[in-house]
């Protein structure tokens, strides 16, 4: 190609980098921005849970209803209507244990987001590593990794989680000792992670395979760049889009999966506040106290909807063609 002898075109968004373009497109997507704020709000709430609960003056551990008489009835349910909601307990009281639902939810969101975030990061890294390795190295590696993915895909996911979660913790801790909360968290993260990266891995393998044949990668290879450099400089920047999009879809998925595990009774245990366990309790008491499930349930719906909308917007920003409208 002959370098241009005249002025290059300046008009229009041609001169912007793809990143700027994507950002511009995303910013213009009002739904995306709003859902982004909602998601952000959840993270802030999770992060600031201790602060909020301090300002609010309650904590998620004190058994208010058991200590102060008159809050719970003989069956262990809030005496006041609507789950005991009042000026003091904004979201009401937990049946039986009489703890404050508002702070329970705040801390529960905090735990769930922490777990989901950790799994997302791990699964994304694993997906990138193995996906790109399979696509780029090809041959035997590709075969091995692809078969490995097939194998993991054939594992009955939920069953695997339910069956192995109780075991994983026992591998870490002497049964005589109190299992520290972090070990339980790590077990959940590990189990979800092991079966959580394959979709991304497959996508990246495909993307890498396609990229490998492209000129600029060929060129870089021919010019003697090390494989690591080719991956870092040429491949990685080009798979940012699927990675980001997949990660945004993954996270709410992990939140709901972890909640499902708690619902099935294999998640985090008392007294660690947990979003998912609130559904287990909710399912237990809904006939006597349906209000209890309201706040965890609605907040989870909002969270998942917002995250999915955000995911759609991220995808659209990267790839306007695929648009949902």
């Amino acid at each position, binding site marked *: 190609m002959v370098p241009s002898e005249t002025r290059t075109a300046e008009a229009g968004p041609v001169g912007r980098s793809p990143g700027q373009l994507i950002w511009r497109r995303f910013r213009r997507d009002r739904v995306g921005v709003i859902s982004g704020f909602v998601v952000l709000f959840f993270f802030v709430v999770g992060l600031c849970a201790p602060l909020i609960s301090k300002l609010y003056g309650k904590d998620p*551990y*004190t*058994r208010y209803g*058991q*200590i102060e*008489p008159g809050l*719970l*009835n*003989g*069956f*262990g*349910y809030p005496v006041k209507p609507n789950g005991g909601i009042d000026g003091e307990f904004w979201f009401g009281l937990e049946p*039986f*244990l*009489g703890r404050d639902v508002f702070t329970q939810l705040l801390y529960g969101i905090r735990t769930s987001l922490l777990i989901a975030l950790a799994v997302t990061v791990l699964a994304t890294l694993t997906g990138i590593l193995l996906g790109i390795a399979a696509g780029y190295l090809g041959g035997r590696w590709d075969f091995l990794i692809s078969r490995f993915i097939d194998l993991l895909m054939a594992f009955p996911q939920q069953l695997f989680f339910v069956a192995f979660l*109780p075991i994983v913790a026992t591998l870490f801790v002497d*049964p*005589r*000792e*109190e*299992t520290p909360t972090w070990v339980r968290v790590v077990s959940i993260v590990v189990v979800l992670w092991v079966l959580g990266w394959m979709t991304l891995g497959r996508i990246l393998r495909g993307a890498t395979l396609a990229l490998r044949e492209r000129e600029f990668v060929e060129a870089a290879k021919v010019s003697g760049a090390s494989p690591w450099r080719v991956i870092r400089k040429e491949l990685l920047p080009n798979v940012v889009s699927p990675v980001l999009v997949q990660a945004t879809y993954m996270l709410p998925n992990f939140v709901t999966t972890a909640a499902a595990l708690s619902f*099935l*009774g294999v998640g985090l*245990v*008392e*007294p660690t506040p947990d979003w998912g366990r609130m559904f*287990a309790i909710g*399912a*237990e*008491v*809904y*006939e*006597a*106290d349906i209000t209890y499930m309201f706040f965890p349930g609605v907040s989870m719906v909002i969270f998942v909807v917002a995250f999915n909308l955000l995911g759609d917007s991220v995808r659209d920003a990267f790839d306007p063609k695929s648009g949902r409208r």
Partner: protein
Amino acid sequence: MGKRTLRGGRAAGVSLALAGALILGACSGGGGGDEGDGVNEPEGAGTLDSIAFGDAEASAGPAEAVPGAEPGGTIHVLQETGPNHLDPAQIYVSDEATVARLLHRGLTTVRLDNDGEYTVVGDLATDSGQVSDGGRTWTYTLKDDIYFNDGSEVTSADVRHTFERQFADFITQGPTFVQQWLANTGGADYRELLPGGPYEGDHLPDTVLETPDEDTVVFHFEEPQTDLPYALSMVGYAIVSEAGDTREAYDEAPLTTGPYQIEEHRPGRSMTLTRNEYWEPESDSARNAYPDRYELTFGHTTDDSTRRLMADNGDDRYAISFNNGVDPANAPEVASDPAYSDRLVQGYQPYVATLAINTERVTDKRVREAIALAVPLNGVLNAYGGTFGGEYAGGFISPLLPGYEAGYDPYGKLAAPQGDPEGARALLEEADAVGYELNYVHHTGTEDSRAAVAITDALEQAGFEVNETEVPQETYYDTISVVDNGYDIYRSNWGHDWLSSSTVLPPLFDGRQIQDGASNYSHFDSDEVNAEIDRIRGIVDPAEAATAWFELNKTIMEDHLPAVPLFYYKQNILHGSLVGGAVFNDDLGTVDMNRLFVIQE
């Protein structure tokens, strides 16, 4: 005495949403004496004014008619877990025992009559037993017209076989009282008496078990065993056919002597009972057997069965549960709405929940007292279903038992069920034990975990350091019944085997019984208490004994405090609108299935 533990969880399918009801424990036999005044009357529960060993007249069939009852129809039984065992010798847990009562008959049984009186009567035997030799020899004569459902007659050979096969290796789950009495040993040593059971041609010598003719069975014991009629009424000692014994396989398809037989059994799913044509009502003084069929379905969580029974639609109008209580979520509504409470049968279960303290580790009584003060009874009971789940306990002796004194509350727990962390802290400071470390183990079941939250929180408020661990529900009792278990506190339940405190205090607090797998969970050993146990056992008068037992209960509570009483379990059975004759049976700790009938429309 055998270990009395809440084993339901291990043997049975435990639902995640397991509610307050208990799954455990066959209990049997009436109690001695007429200590009616000691029994506190809970709502709906019957009282035990008097109980007697029935004579031949009382034992003769047919059973007294239930007013208004008509034969016929089908009763539907909604159960959480299906029986894992059908071989009577393997049956001990209550959800198996309740079903088995429709199928099997033993030498004796406990009859609840129209007046609410309990009598130990002869079942296959003509009376509750002829005792001689100062309680060392018991003679039973079999009735006429008693048959297995294959048409063969029940003979003394079958009775002998029934007891001999209790020693077989594959019989592991049933009661062990009679074997131990016959062998005069404790623990599992009785197996030495007839290793492997009767299958190799060995038999118990006539000096132990004698069958002089077709209809007569004689038990010979080295020590007086005055409780034998009670023990023999346990389903675990129901009669097994010698000719029809298929050993392990008998567990799936046993022959029956009771009014019903198994027509179809889909393990864990359903069971259909139809009439045993060879059962003669004239031979049975305890069973009315009005319904033609029983349709049992399993896999109903307590919330599921409660909702069905509340809705009262279709077949559920003919439904009841033997073991599923009202679940906590529906309890408030069931209690408050007459549409439901009229169909509710309530009473005490035999179990008393306690928080055992390992006295070998927690040696300072002040520390134990601090634990007792701190523990929030309301937190524990809330987890187990609140007022439907039980009633705060002040001692180790159930309100069902003779000698029980209502309102006994040495540590003020009934008055302050939320616990007294300040008082506890003061005691700890006095003992210079603030920051005392407690290893606390509980199981992973919903209720126990929930109770643990309250207990741990309260103990830490009081100044303890709690190291909380959990084990799976099904291994819980195996974990805590190890002598060197390494734990300081753990919840344990105990239920009497029959209505006498002699089946409560000795197994729990006799220090000479401490061994792996035994029920002295507190590892409590006091010469004074041991001596007192021996003394009371020698008391012949049941009323006097009952009072003495309760005094010993006080001594243990006040001077030693090896465990913190938490609550007395209650049972709440709801039934469909077309089920008649539902009354609570204190002996069973649930509804009396022998009196049920279908209200014909």
